[in-house]
């Protein structure tokens, strides 16, 4: 899924090595951001929830 996202974004930054780098970085940034959310979800894994 991450690879697909990178490839979809690639043409928008130019179909060169720089474009691929930028789209890979963008995907990586999204992954880091979502990992942050997931780490917080895990940290709050309390038995009580509403």
């Amino acid at each position: 899924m991450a690879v697909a996202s990178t490839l979809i974004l690639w043409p928008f930054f130019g179909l060169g090595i720089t474009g691929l780098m930028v789209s890979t970085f963008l995907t990586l940034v999204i992954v880091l951001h979502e990992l942050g959310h997931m780490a917080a979800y895990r940290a709050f894994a309390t038995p009580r929830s509403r």
Partner: protein
Amino acid sequence: MIFIPFLGGIAIGGRPYNSLFEVATCALMGPGMSAFLVPILIAGREASHLGLLPHLLEGPLLVFLLILGGFNLLNLLPTYRFDGGQVLRQVFVTKKALVGASFAVTSAILCVGWIIGAPNNALLAGLAVFTLLSLIGAGSVKPKEKLEPMGGAERMLVGFGLYSAVAMHSYAIIYAAAALF
């Protein structure tokens, strides 16, 4: 984790919330976790600038820093669905304070755009798009019972967290843009 092309991704927690502190912290930890990387990336760039790391790394490090700061700072905009809006709504309980804080965060982010020399028209157009996005907001899943409210200390803590996240990502963008352009 689900990727949505052009909009980013969605983290699936799989567990409902118990308190408003959880809602605010989980929203804040997206940009917060990335903020940990900002000083490390800047140190890496400085090291490659000084020759302690290969010079070739300097460009990619700056580009990564710019994208990291840009994506996270836009996520901190006080828009209903975005992390910034989620956090602000939990921290500021009165309407007046919420409006004031939203304007403060938005102007800080606009200022960053202005400092790095983004064209005024682009900034205004971007702001208009985000305002429209925030209008779609309403309607969300409501918990069965009311979530535990936050105390004053928790609200202050999350508020400072938001402040530092905005400050660090703003600095990341300004630093990277000044070195790149």
